[in-house]
């Protein structure tokens, strides 16, 4: 196994997490990861060095954008139940955050997840989305406001424990 393939392999769990949150459906998420890996491996000889992690997130983000574009004219199906109920106990909260994410526009969801879940810097996210840092920050601010409102709006009666 080459160092390149090792680096790609190390990223698979994180890519799956990002894809799961991005696409909601576990099978679609793994499709995205598979396509990302196939592309990355096909391009091994074209990869000229640099940050493999950012590069993989970029491929996945773009593939998801394409997927959503091709789905745009079809009816949207929402799963009745999450395929993967949260194992850590706070199921209701998990479903709420997933539902709140699904109401975000694509690029805001991507920014929110890359920063808050995957821990990427503003600079890295700007490169991944091909936009200035200022755009990343305004997308992030709008995404946070939207998710906050969505969480509060859906469960006004429940107390947030933190």
């Amino acid at each position: 196994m080459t160092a390149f393939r090792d680096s790609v392999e190390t990223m698979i769990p994180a890519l799956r997490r990002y894809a799961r949150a991005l696409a909601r459906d576990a099978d679609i998420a793994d499709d995205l990861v598979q396509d990302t890996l196939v592309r990355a491996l096909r391009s091994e000889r074209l990869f000229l060095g640099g940050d493999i992690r950012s590069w993989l997130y970029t491929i996945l983000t773009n593939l998801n954008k394409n997927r959503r574009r091709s789905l745009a004219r079809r009816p949207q199906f929402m799963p009745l139940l999450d395929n993967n109920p949260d194992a850590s106990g706070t199921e209701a909260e998990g479903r709420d955050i997933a539902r709140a994410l699904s109401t975000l526009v694509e690029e805001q969801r991507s920014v929110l997840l890359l920063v808050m879940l995957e821990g990427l810097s503003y600079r890295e996210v700007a490169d991944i989305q091909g936009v200035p840092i200022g755009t990343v920050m305004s997308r992030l601010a709008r995404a946070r406001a939207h998710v906050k409102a969505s969480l509060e709006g859906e469960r006004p009666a429940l107390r947030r424990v933190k």
Partner: protein
Amino acid sequence: MTEPQIPVTEDELHAYVDNELPAERRGDVEAWLAAHPDDAARVQSWRAMADALHARYDSVLDEAVPKRLEIERLVRQPRKWIYGAVAAALAAFIVGGGAGWVARGVIGSPSTFQNFTVDALDAHRLYVVELRHPVEVEASERDHLISWLSKRCGYDVKAPELEVTGLKLVGGRLLPGPEGPAAFLMYESPTGQRFTLYASRADMKTTHMHYASSNGDGAMFWANGSVGYVFSGAVDKERLNQIAHLVYDQTEIAGG
């Protein structure tokens, strides 16, 4: 708690939570939050949001990676059968032709020829099953596609007209070839059967067409000048041969 001199902006609150704030400004923001409960509550809600995201999705990290995502599988599996098929075809060609050394001279080293065809069939198998993004540039941008591929591949790439056999160009993409970039074009029949043409500069002398098949996929391969071609599709040899000759005629006229 004293009010900081410069008011804290919304952007700074986000940067503070995301550890993107310059260290010298952190103290100011913390003082600001102590004096502004509304902002402090918002910052707290963003942290809770991050916790909720991790609580919901971190379990994915601990899941076993599905077999279909294993690197070894993605890298090796499509190649195994192809190596077998191409090696068998080459052996048949070399032995059957009864002129092994001549064949060697004609097509360059067998490994060049073999690698080339393996890469082509690999690409064929990979992309014909792709529903969502079989090509990078679609046929609607044919002129752009051809000039882009020509520029990157370093020869005059042609997209043959195959309408007489019922095939329409879907589009194309750039792929890494054994010795440089390869042009990859996809065609589709009215019933959705897909054919691909893989072409790249390669150290091969002009040769006649040869045929290999395995698991229902067939490939015609030949070299013309310094460019090697592999035309692949899941049809019988006669049909593949008929279409491949159309490709051959049109790429030969192009002189590349």
